[in-house]
């Protein structure tokens, strides 16, 4: 396993439940069982052009988790000249298992956490380099 870092960037939009689900998936990847492997980073910091953040991204595999078709996380990362190793669209993952429909942006509920787990599994399976 190369020592290239894996960085997960959720859109964490505040307008929709999917933004919170993207955050929850990032939490599960970076703070629980896969702590050593996956890190995260502030998306707004990237867009503000924080050089340190950009340089780190350029040397890592970047996984974006977007909450809606506007794909802000993916767009913002590509705009600073970094290509995305894997793009996950939350609604697409939900379409495969509509049981895991999240609650509201305030509380995604048990199903929301399960949806986040589906996203984590998708990244672990397809994302390994």
């Amino acid at each position, binding site marked *: 396993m190369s020592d290239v870092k894996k960085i997960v*960037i*959720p*859109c*964490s*939009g*505040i*307008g*929709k439940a999917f*933004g919170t689900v993207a*955050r929850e998936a*990032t*939490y599960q990847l970076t*703070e629980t069982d896969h702590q050593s492997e996956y890190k*995260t*980073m*502030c*998306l*707004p*910091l990237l*867009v*503000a052009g*924080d050089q340190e953040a950009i340089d780190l991204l350029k040397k890592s595999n970047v996984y974006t988790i977007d909450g809606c078709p*506007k*794909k*802000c*996380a993916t*767009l*913002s990362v590509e705009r600073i000249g970094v290509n995305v190793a894997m793009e996950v669209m939350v609604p697409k993952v939900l379409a495969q298992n509509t049981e895991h429909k999240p609650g509201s*942006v*305030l509380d995604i509920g048990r199903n929301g956490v399960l949806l986040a787990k589906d996203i984590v599994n998708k990244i672990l399976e397809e994302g390994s380099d």
Partner: protein
Amino acid sequence: MSELPKVGIISCSGEDCPGGNISREATLRVLHDLRPDETVTICLPLFLAGGEGERGFAKRFPTITVDGCGKLCAAIGTARFSSKPTVEINLEDYDDFSSLKIEEKWHIQESSKDLVEKLANDIVNHVDEIRKISE
């Protein structure tokens, strides 16, 4: 439906520090519970990525930015892509910011609940003030 202008609230969505989570939680409290009809959700990533609706709104209506750390991405982003925010809140100015523990980053802990409430009330005061001026 009051004719007073609505206020857009733009919260930092920082993942990497507890401040981001706290400012997000306080903002949601204001948007959904405290002032649902007077405020509008502005999603910072969409705003920065170029949301036409979001930017159009931020140009024509007053905005409050809530930043979870000193980098002030919400305030800077708003000024750059539309107009200077009416009010800029920085969580670092709150004295119990330094006592935030790292695990606050993802889930609000008991200990920071009152900071969230305090921040939410400050936002509400600003919202009411802004709307009163424009009466």
